[in-house]
């Protein structure tokens, strides 16, 4: 039987093509593979499910053995967030034309270029910065690259990194910066913000996040920018764009590079497969030169008034220069960039402000509710956006008890600390349900 995915496996087509080429068998084309490298048996794989229905049954059997966050009440965040995804976002990113395209030219893939240009442009408005990359893999990669950019730009090899950062992200930074860049950790103050820091002329950058790993909004951005600049270093800020309808963008307090993950902008949690990273700077040529990612720009065509798009300053990249380019560039997360653009266009300035207000208010409500339920809320006086940490006798025991009530209560940061995430998807009654369950379980 000819497989539905392989038209020319049909024996007649195969024979006629061989005849046209003048070959006896497909084996001839493999003549360069030495016999001792040939696999002399079929691969040992499960029997195929060629009938689509059989495959569907098999996959459904596997996928049904999961309980997702629409079937439980989830307060899990810590880098992947349950925001509402407007249906139009899914509609656009599931269009065959976008989903199955790759790397065409600005002509036949005009739509991709325009959609990505619009994405970076809307991010630019949100960030108040003029240069934003076509998405890199994720916020981890974005932070690593932002710090490498700062080092290349300043010619220095030491960075000060907030310790109010996810352990996994720090692991990635350590690996990624390992060969030549030293990471110095800045302490966390009692209020949950970055603590006192001391710089010297060896530092390329200060890196902080807001909201940070504890959901705390940093309030000393301007001070840290001034401090960094006074030492010839850059301020690099990791910021979640969904907060920027209400929180000041890093550029407003002097950050030189902003970076982060855009998963919160209209992209499902996808079991962690929805991450995509942004990096942004002002339009300062020497800093722009350090971007490894592709940058899309608008350009005139030979018809007056018509816009086209293309790569800005392509010769920075490893596509152009191999190891002489900046880091590397490959297939990263462009479709999520298009999706985030759709999200920002749907939300507009009002939607972004409102979602921020709602999250701020509900986060505070949840902190109060869990405190009343008997948990110890950490950094209670700080401003929290979307996340906060609570101290409990046993994080594992509490989570198990909550899970028995179909509640995913939070991400354990350690044996006694739980990170709780609240978004615009969580109604007041959802939060009350959590608080009640926590009270009962503690």
């Amino acid at each position, binding site marked *: 039987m000819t497989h539905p995915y392989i038209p020319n496996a049909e024996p007649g087509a195969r024979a006629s093509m061989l005849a046209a080429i003048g070959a006896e068998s497909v084996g001839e084309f493999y003549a360069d593979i030495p016999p001792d490298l040939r696999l002399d048996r079929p691969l040992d794989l499960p029997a195929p499910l060629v009938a689509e229905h059989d495959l569907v049954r098999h996959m459904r059997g596997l996928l049904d053995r999961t309980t997702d966050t*629409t079937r439980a009440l989830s307060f899990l965040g810590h880098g992947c967030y349950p925001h509402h995804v407007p249906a139009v976002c899914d509609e656009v990113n599931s269009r065959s034309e976008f989903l199955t395209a790759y790397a065409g030219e600005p002509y036949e893939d005009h*739509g991709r270029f325009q959609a990505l240009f619009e994405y970076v442009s809307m991010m630019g408005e949100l960030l108040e910065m003029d240069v934003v990359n076509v998405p890199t893999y994720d916020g981890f990669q974005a932070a690593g690259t932002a710090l490498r950019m700062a080092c290349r730009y300043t010619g220095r090899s030491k960075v000060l990194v907030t310790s109010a950062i996810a352990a996994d992200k720090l692991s990635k930074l350590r690996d990624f910066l390992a060969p030549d860049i030293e990471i110095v950790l800045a302490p966390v103050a009692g209020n949950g913000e970055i603590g006192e820091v001391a710089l010297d002329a060896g530092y390329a950058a200060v890196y902080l996040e807001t909201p940070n790993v504890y959901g705390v909004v940093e309030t000393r951005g301007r001070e840290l920018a001034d401090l960094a600049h006074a030492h010839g270093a850059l301020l690099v800020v990791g910021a979640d764009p969904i907060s920027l309808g209400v*929180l000041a963008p890093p550029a407003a307090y002097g950050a030189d590079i902003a970076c982060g993950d855009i998963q919160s902008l209209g992209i499902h949690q996808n079991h962690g497969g929805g991450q*995509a990273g942004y990096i942004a700077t002002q339009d300062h040529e020497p800093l722009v030169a350090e971007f490894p990612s592709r940058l899309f720009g608008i350009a005139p065509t030979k018809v007056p008034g018509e816009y086209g798009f293309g790569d800005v300053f392509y010769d920075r990249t490893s596509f152009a220069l191999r190891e002489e380019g900046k880091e590397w560039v490959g297939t990263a997360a462009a479709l999520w960039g298009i999706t985030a653009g759709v999200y920002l266009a749907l939300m507009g300035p009002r939607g972004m402000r409102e979602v921020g207000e709602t999250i701020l208010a509900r986060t*505070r409500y949840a902190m109060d509710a869990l405190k009343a339920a008997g948990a110890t809320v950490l950094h209670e006086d700080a401003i929290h956006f979307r996340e906060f940490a609570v101290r409990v006798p046993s994080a594992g025991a509490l989570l198990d008890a909550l899970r028995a009530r179909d509640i995913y209560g939070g991400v354990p940061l350690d044996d006694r600390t739980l990170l709780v995430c609240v978004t615009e998807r969580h109604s007041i009654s959802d939060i009350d349900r959590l608080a009640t369950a926590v009270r009962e379980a503690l």
Partner: protein
Amino acid sequence: WDEPIIFELSHPGRRGVAVPAPDAPPVELPEGVRRENPPALPEMSQLHVLRHYLRLSQENLGVDLNIDVGQGTCTMKYSPKVNDTFANAVAELHPLQHEDTVQGVLEIYWRLERMLAEISGMSRVSLQPGSGSAAIYANIAMIRAYHAARGEGHRDQVITTMFSHPSNAACAKTAGYEVITLMPDADGYPDIEALRAAVGPRTAALMITNPEDTGIFNPRIREFVELVHGVGGLACYDQANANGILGITRARDAGFDLCHFNLHKTFSTPHACGGPAAGACGVAPELEPFLPGPVVSFDGERYGLETPERSVGKIRPFLGVTPNIVRAYAWIMALGAEGLREVAETAVLNNNYLMHQILQIPGASAPWDKRRVEQVRYSWRELAEETGVHSEEIGVRAADFGVHYWTSHHPYLVPEPFTLEPTESYSREDLDEYAAILAHVAEEARRDPEFVKGAPYNQTIHKIDPTALDDPKRWAPTWRAYVRKHLSGSGSEG
């Protein structure tokens, strides 16, 4: 469609989606923390946002729409629609859910890992990397950790070849290695004499593709591996071009210590305008302790997560790009061992058939008179010399007929290159049509070179003036930069 930039469609006061009201007391923010000026995002109703993006989508090609054999090295193949439904089923899973609540997904990871181990001959596989380049990087990170663990941190050179993907060189460089690049010899193979000269006590690894992006399979690949092993280096196989050799030959059988696959190439996950993708790193037993964490474990009853002893840490957040893991698994399950071999053989047949057709076009050639596996880097050198029309221009003109191609990575060692990889997804008629279009454009180039150079004629826009994109005074990587530099009249640089 003549679709404006989205900012031009904005009308104050409109909105595309409404947000749940706070219904809890508002939170006061101190000055400097609260945003002062609302972002100048577009304000549009929902239909108008949708219409804009649907029109843009129609101004895009994709595997589903065109005969996408022209993006050589990218393995453009059919990504079955049914697999998207499986991917959508994990949309609302959080990556840090308790293992008990995601057993089905962990089982898919586990089973896919076993399949890729069998396909590559390796013992374990990490599915964490977000793409092929990220997998290359992960492999280099493991190589670095491996040597460091053995007290051989002095090894600071990575050897690669010019027809391997640039990420091999660039990732090695990023990881702190000096990069040595082997050039092709007169036969188009990476120069084994150059390798002999390059290997030594400083050699950390060889990073090599086979077949290389020329489509030529290097029959002495085992010798390459052995040369590197001989000096204590590791051999790492970039299997981006695995589509033609599935079930035919395996990485481990040639002695490699590490390899990677691009799941969005060989294993059919969609290219998504350039990601999200997925990569898989396969390793031999001695490298298992260094795999990125976590990996999926199985005790015979229950699937869990564990981090290898000397793990290089995270390559990306969480476990991997799960929607694509699910798709790749489903794709292999739909094909099985026999099907994968049919994929390989048909991809190779298609490639050789297309080569046969292309080489009948006057002016087209395929440098080095060698057999090809799954793709060919062709050259329009003769045609360019005759007409002055460059390969890129021919590709743009071909787009007027609904197809396109990619030239190749820089540097253009093959002059006036174009790289075609027809994969198993295309029919004979598709290949004939594609070749006929190129033949037609080549004929046009001969008849009226200026006409071809003026292309496109049949696309949304006309020929772009690229000079503005490389000039810092004029480039506009965002609309706000464009407004500032080109519309506001000030023209000053920020």
